[in-house]
């Protein structure tokens, strides 16, 4: 897939009378990690949801652009991988079945060996991959969520609290993932973790 940049200009979001974001601007570019930092409730997740096209901003605009120009909103999703605390995978399926399902939806013809490789790369041992996700610990579920986000090698990767529920080894796995994707994708990370803030090539600090 060709490189994609995401430009957002004057993005504001109100929920009823409450302003969550006020005129936030920036750009996600291939080769850069944009860290979105700020206290709880500052609007980090809201901004990532707006960048993903899952929420419409109250004001301002988001533009996805590839070599051929701006992309219409329905085509953002095929260029995008996202993991967030409020995005789960299916608990009635195993990790492998989840990846098979998402691969099929995205039109990827991947053998089980390749899917297992993705899961192993995120630290999920082979014997765990065929167990139902509903029986997993929260850290293991987080690894499956990350796996579905990167499965299609997206040119835009949005990670909301990517190390949440992960132990130290898990944090290192996520750091490795971000380092790999920095080379070939535009990455945004919403976080409060000081270790993750250090990944930033660019940074947006949101205030309450």
């Amino acid at each position, binding site marked *: 897939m060709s490189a994609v940049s995401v430009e957002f200009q004057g993005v504001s979001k109100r929920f009823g009378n409450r302003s969550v974001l006020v005129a936030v601007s920036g750009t996600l570019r291939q080769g850069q990690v944009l860290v979105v930092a700020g206290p709880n409730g500052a609007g980090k997740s809201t901004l990532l949801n707006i960048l993903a096209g*899952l929420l419409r901003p109250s004001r301002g605009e988001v533009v996805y652009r590839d070599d051929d120009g701006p992309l219409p909103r329905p085509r953002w999703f095929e260029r995008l991988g996202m993991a967030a605390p409020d995005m789960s995978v299916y608990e009635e399926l195993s990790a492998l079945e989840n990846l098979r399902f998402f691969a099929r*939806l995205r*039109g990827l013809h991947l053998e089980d060996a390749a899917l297992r490789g993705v899961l192993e790369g995120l630290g999920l041992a082979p014997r765990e991959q065929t167990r139902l996700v509903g029986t997993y610990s929260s850290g293991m579920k987080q690894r499956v969520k990350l796996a579905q986000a990167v499965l299609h090698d997206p040119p835009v990767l949005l990670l909301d609290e990517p190390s949440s529920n992960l132990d130290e080894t898990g944090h290192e796995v996520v750091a490795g993932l971000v380092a790999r994707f920095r080379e070939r994708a535009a990455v945004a990370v919403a976080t409060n973790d000081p270790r993750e803030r250090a990944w930033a090539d660019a940074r947006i600090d949101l205030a309450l």
Partner: protein
Amino acid sequence: MRASTLLSESLAVLGKELTAELRSRVALNAVGLFGLTTLIAVAYQIGPYRIQEQDRPHLLAALLWVILFFAATSGLSRVFVKEEDAHTAKTLRLAARPLAVLAGKFLFNLILLASLYAFIVPLYCALMGYSVRGVPSLVLLLACGAVALSATSTIVAAIISRASGSTTLFAILSVPLVLPLLVMLIQGTRAAAGSAAVAAVLPALQGVVSLGGATLLISVYLFPVVWHD
């Protein structure tokens, strides 16, 4: 660019729904238990002999569809709410085309409804002493009714899932769509019970197919907006 077809994506959604349902059995249990309990209550209280002969065609057809509809409602309404409850809706929204989600969920509801009909209708006929002269007509009516009811339930379920999954809202939104459908299905069933000729159920069948087709068509245009906004 997507290499998958809409059909392949829809079948993937259907496969996921079926696998998840066979493992959790939430909808199957709800629909089966509701259907069976209502049927037994009706059969116990009314049975084959407590209805006047002249009332039988009307009452038995109406009771059959009341049982089928309310049993179906208990399971079909959850098809999107469960995605919101389990926080999988966003993940699915990013990975699948809206029409693939709609088609997969519609087919799942259709299979659930067909299973319910296959289970309840013969049992109802046996317990209530309901003899149907036009069995092929009834089967045709049940098939078209299942398609129309699945289409209605699926789009209404999608709308309510974006409104915090209110089942009250499901009932309110369903009434104007389902009421004419149920009336036609009851009329058709009465006609099928009384005559072996398919022509007897044709007016009802035409109505059901038209309403089901219109609902499906509207759903195709409405669903992407409901799903993404």
